[in-house]
Every structure is written in structure tokens, then in C-alpha cells.
């Protein structure tokens, strides 16, 4: 598969290194210094630029991408880039990191796959303490009723 990852932080780097063992991975990142996160022996392509800029997306090969991950630390940046990939380029698999649980829920309701790290970490820690076997990711990635605003 051709995989496009927007954001080369810790999440983006780990994801890129794992996926590039079997797939062709291209990373879009604003900061050239971030490339060091991949170490010396990586096989990823890195395109310097922003994933909300269509010229950059095209240079990174969005037209032939099978999957698009938006994992910068900016929720809104991720959500905008993901929607450009979805609406303008019809990328099949799109996954977005959204740190704010409520914002993530709003976009899940629109059909986007949003991963909220805080919810997953909290759920796994809870299960670790109570010796409960870990569950499927969807069961963690849910807004607790107490956090619901509307």
C-alpha cells in the first residue's frame, strides 16, 4: 500500500517506521529537523510542507495514496487535512488523531475515524489496574458520558 502520514512527531515517526517494513510510506512534515526521529536507516520518503496545502499533498503522492494518517499535534490541522484527502482525493483509508474528546466525537458522528489518545490511554490503564483483558480499540475510543457537553 501507499501510505501518507502527515506529522512527524513521536506518533508519526513510530507509525511510519512500523508501516514502512511492509509498505511504501511518505511523510509530510513542516519542520526539517524532525527527520532525525526516524533514525539513520529508515526507508520513508519525507516531503517538507503542510498537509493542508494541496500542492504539498500532490507532491507527496496523495493521488495514489491508499491510506492517509493525520497525526500532527493540531486537531484542526489534522481534521482539515483529512477532509481534503477524503473529499478532493477520495483516499480510501483515513485516520485522524484528535486530542479533544468532544471535537473527536463530533467528527466521528460525521463518519471520520478519529483516535483520541487520552481516552485510549485512560482505558488501558484502567484495565491494567483491574487485570481486565484489553479490549478492542473502539471500546476505549468513546467519549465518557460525564464529558459530554451537549
Amino acid at each position, binding site marked *: 500500500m501507499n501510505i501518507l502520514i502527515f506529522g512527524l512527531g513521536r506518533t508519526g515517526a513510530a507509525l511510519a517506521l512500523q508501516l514502512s517494513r511492509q509498505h511504501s510510506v511518505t511523510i509530510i512534515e513542516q519542520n526539517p529537523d524532525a527527520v532525525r526521529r526516524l533514525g539513520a536507516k529508515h526507508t520513508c520518503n519525507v516531503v517538507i510542507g503542510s498537509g493542508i496545502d*494541496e500542492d504539498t499533498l500532490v507532491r507527496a503522492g496523495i493521488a495514489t495514496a491508499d491510506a492517509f494518517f493525520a497525526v500532527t499535534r493540531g486537531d484542526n490541522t489534522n481534521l482539515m487535512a483529512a*477532509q481534503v484527502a477524503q473529499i478532493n482525493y477520495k483516499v480510501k483509508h483515513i485516520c485522524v488523531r484528535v486530542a479533544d474528546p*468532544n*471535537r473527536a466525537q463530533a467528527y466521528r458522528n460525521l463518519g471520520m475515524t478519529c483516535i483520541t489518545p487520552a481516552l485510549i490511554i485512560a482505558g488501558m490503564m484502567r484495565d491494567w489496574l483491574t487485570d481486565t483483558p484489553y479490549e478492542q480499540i473502539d471500546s476505549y475510543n468513546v467519549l465518557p458520558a460525564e464529558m459530554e457537553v451537549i
Partner: protein
Amino acid sequence: MYLILVGGGNVGMQLAKKLIGRGHEVLLMEKDGKQATRLATILGEESVFVGDGCEVATQKEAGFNRADAVVAVTGEDEDNLVVCQMAKVVWNVQRVLARVNDPSHEEIFKKIGVDQTVSATSLIFSLLDQQITMDEFIQVGALAKGNIEIVELILSGRSPVLGMAVRDLTLPPKTNIIYILRKEQGLLVSGDTTFEEGDTILALVPSDQADALRGMLH
């Protein structure tokens, strides 16, 4: 009307001032506390809200559910996009408008359902573009949905239509000459009206016929 503006920079502040002056109920949201305090001294405390307009909880507190319009004018397109989209899908706000800083983003804003976008870059560019390429042919307005433009053209001494009557011209399809300004006098146009050098012609023309009209009169 209750209008919520997100983004308390210069654009947000000036816009809020104007809207308050028009008698609207306005709430300007700004996430930076210091900037919000400055805005409150200018606009009044009741018109400023400190908080992130992208967060559901803040949106609830600010009253997105009863807003007649939400206008996103931060300097970041991604923030403006999310504010507008959430206003639409979470709070059912009837009208959402966004400032778009990078003109190439206008398309995605339209596609996700933002009613109206404004790009200073596009505006300035189109003004410059008209000055540079359109010569005496100035587009004075675009009639929103019909792709109809009101254009203004001054007839030079070289115009091939001087001395001709309007009825003898075959205008491009759906084109109408609506007014002629001659020596500071406005003339209503009839079939008998003849063209003179220096006439300022106002015409309604479909956007894709504007060049044809120019070719004919210029």
C-alpha cells in the same frame, strides 16, 4: 440578530465594532486572555468572551445554539474551518462565514458547507488583475448565483460601434445594455440610442460572455 465572531485579531475587532454599531448582539471570542482584556476595553465586557471557539464546551457557553450566524476570522484556515463546520453540524447554525487566508482553501470550505468565504488575498488579487488586464473594462460587481456580472466599459475613439444604434448590434447571448453615461448624464437605453465616443456603458452580461462583449465594443 445574535452574531458570534471567532478570532479577536484586527479583523475580528473591527468587524465586531461595526456590527455592534448596527445594533446587533455580538460576541467576539478570543482565546488569548491578554488580547481579550484589550478587546473588552474597546468593545465592552459583554461583547467579549475568553475561550477557544473550537471547543464544544466553550461553544455551548457562548451560545452557539442560539446564534443567527457564526463568523470565523482567525488567522488560521484550519481553525476557521473547524469552527464553521462544528457550528453547522453540532449546533445547526443557519449561516456560517469564514475568512480564508490561503485562497486555494476556498474550495474545501465550500465543499464542507460553509455558506460564504472571504479571502483578502483573492480580493486584492482580483482588483490588481482587473487593473492590469482589463484595461477600460471594469467589472463592478458579480451577481452571486447567476454568474452574471455588471460591467462598465468606456468607448474609445477606436470603438467599432461609434454612431451605431443599439438595435443594430448583435449582443452576446443574455446580455443587456442597461445604462449609458454620457457627459455626466445618464441615458436610459432604447433601440434608437446611438453610441458616442466617451460613453460609459453599463451592461449585464453572463461571466463567460464578458470577453465577447469587450471584443465587440472595444
